[in-house]
């Protein structure tokens, strides 16, 4: 009766393997993003960074993981027990879910069978990503509230207000792209941007807005109001320790990875690159280009973090509501006019 419930075993197997592979890749990238963050921060500050664990400190993420697991798992007396445990789990879950709709490449020929390099081509991929990023805030909010600590609560309240404010501008910036490409599917967006026909040339303002909002949604500096060590001593994760804290921090890096991948897909042509056919090397060229772009944006995220100071909270709100949303609406109107004038 309904197409989504009809499945064949081979497809299920293929997709299951892909899920596992994608999961492993996501976790690895996130783990090495923590290493990259420390290394890049060090380089920006004329230091060397972690270099004791393995060559160039490459085993540092493993060491960090072992450290997180072996630390005392402390729970405050007055905490809401179940919600306190649920919060980091849900944060992690939501962070991992988002990568399902990102097209990492065209097709990979494995065992003589073409395998799509996208977990699922939802016809509403963009909305799916918006939906799951909007859910990410629950982990922070519930965690902060369940800790029963006023600093944590401040962190959650800030996080929720910030998320709501920046989601609007983010959605409006994305709508302009959707209007231009006429689809909500990320796969079709990537196909339309073949060669150097990237959306960034048509949507520079939209990209800027989206990028700023992505920083805010990932709780990255200069928008890391929710943790804000200097004011809130860690904010929503003040009371967290051991792997629960690790999950929060880790999920943040997964979020960063996924949002960088979304930026690369939506504005920078995804797996397309001029003069490079994404089908080369049996389809491996697409993912390589895609990952290169994603890593570049992760680098930019870190670059910004180690350059800019944190916003004050009222400045953050003013930027969101009084600058980005009007700009996004103007961008949307201009795009609408452009589509009417030139396309049809």
């Amino acid at each position, binding site marked *: 009766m*309904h197409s989504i*419930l009809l499945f064949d075993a081979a497809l299920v197997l293929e997709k299951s393997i892909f899920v596992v592979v994608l999961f492993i890749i996501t976790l690895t990238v996130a783990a090495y993003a923590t290493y990259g963050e420390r290394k890049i921060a060090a380089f920006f500050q004329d230091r060397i960074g972690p270099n004791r664990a393995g060559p160039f400190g490459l085993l540092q993420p493993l060491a960090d993981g072992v450290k997180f697991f072996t630390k005392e798992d402390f729970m405050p007396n007055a905490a809401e027990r179940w919600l306190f445990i649920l919060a980091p789990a849900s944060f992690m879950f939501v962070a991992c879910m988002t990568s399902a709709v990102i097209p990492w490449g065209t097709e990979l020929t494995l065992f003589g069978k073409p395998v799509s390099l996208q977990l699922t081509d939802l016809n*509403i991929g963009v909305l799916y990503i918006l939906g799951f990023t909007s859910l990410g805030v629950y982990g922070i909010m519930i965690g902060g509230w369940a800790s029963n600590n006023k600093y944590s609560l401040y962190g959650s*309240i800030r996080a*929720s207000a910030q998320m709501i404010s920046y989601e609007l501008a983010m959605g409006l910036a994305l709508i302009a792209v959707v209007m231009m490409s006429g689809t909500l599917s990320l796969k079709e967006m990537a196909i339309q941007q073949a060669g150097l026909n990237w959306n960034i040339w048509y949507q520079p303002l939209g990209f800027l807005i989206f990028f700023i909002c992505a920083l805010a949604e990932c709780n990255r500096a200069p928008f890391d109001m929710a943790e804000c060590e200097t004011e809130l001593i860690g904010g929503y994760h003040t009371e967290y320790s051991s792997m629960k804290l690790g999950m929060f921090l880790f999920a943040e890096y997964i979020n960063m990875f996924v949002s960088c991948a979304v930026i690369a897909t939506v504005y920078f042509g995804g797996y397309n690159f001029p003069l490079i056919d994404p089908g080369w090397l049996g389809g491996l060229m697409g993912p390589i280009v895609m990952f290169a772009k994603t890593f570049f944006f992760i680098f930019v995220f870190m670059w910004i973090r180690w350059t800019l100071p944190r916003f004050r909270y009222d400045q953050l709100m003013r930027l969101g509501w009084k600058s980005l949303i009007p700009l996004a609406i103007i961008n949307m109107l201009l795009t609408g006019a452009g589509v009417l004038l030139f396309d049809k």
Partner: protein
Amino acid sequence: MSLAVFLILAAASVLFALLVVFTKNPVHSVIYLILAFFAIAGQYVLLNAQFLAVVHIIVYAGAIMVLFLFVLMLLNLNMDTEPTQTGRWKLGAAIAAGMLLVTFIGALKGGIQLSAVTDHNPQVGLVQNLGRVLFTDFVVPFEIAGILFLAAMVGAVMVGKRDVTI
């Protein structure tokens, strides 16, 4: 298969909806409400209306419930601060809710049809079809809803505006 999924989702949504009402802690209520929304979004997916499902999650679970939670956290409601309701208030509330129920039953009694929708087009929930329907058949209600939202927004700004400009 889809019937089983439907039954599970239906049971879950009813269960979570009941838990929303019967939980003492307001924050727990909000979380159950979010779970209920997820169950309902699952129903939309079953009807092949992914757009509605995702928008439902973005708008209700992602934005409105965040605001709910935000306010609840600020208020910090718990047993100690909860004002004890007098019997008179409880009676009034019961009468008001009962009248609302009677109104609903009266309104739905004539129009309700429990037979399954047979001519259900599985493509109707897709974005293109939904957009076409919204901007042709339902353009007047759609625009009126838009004006309503605009008015609500202006009103909210007016309420939120301080008397003293800094």
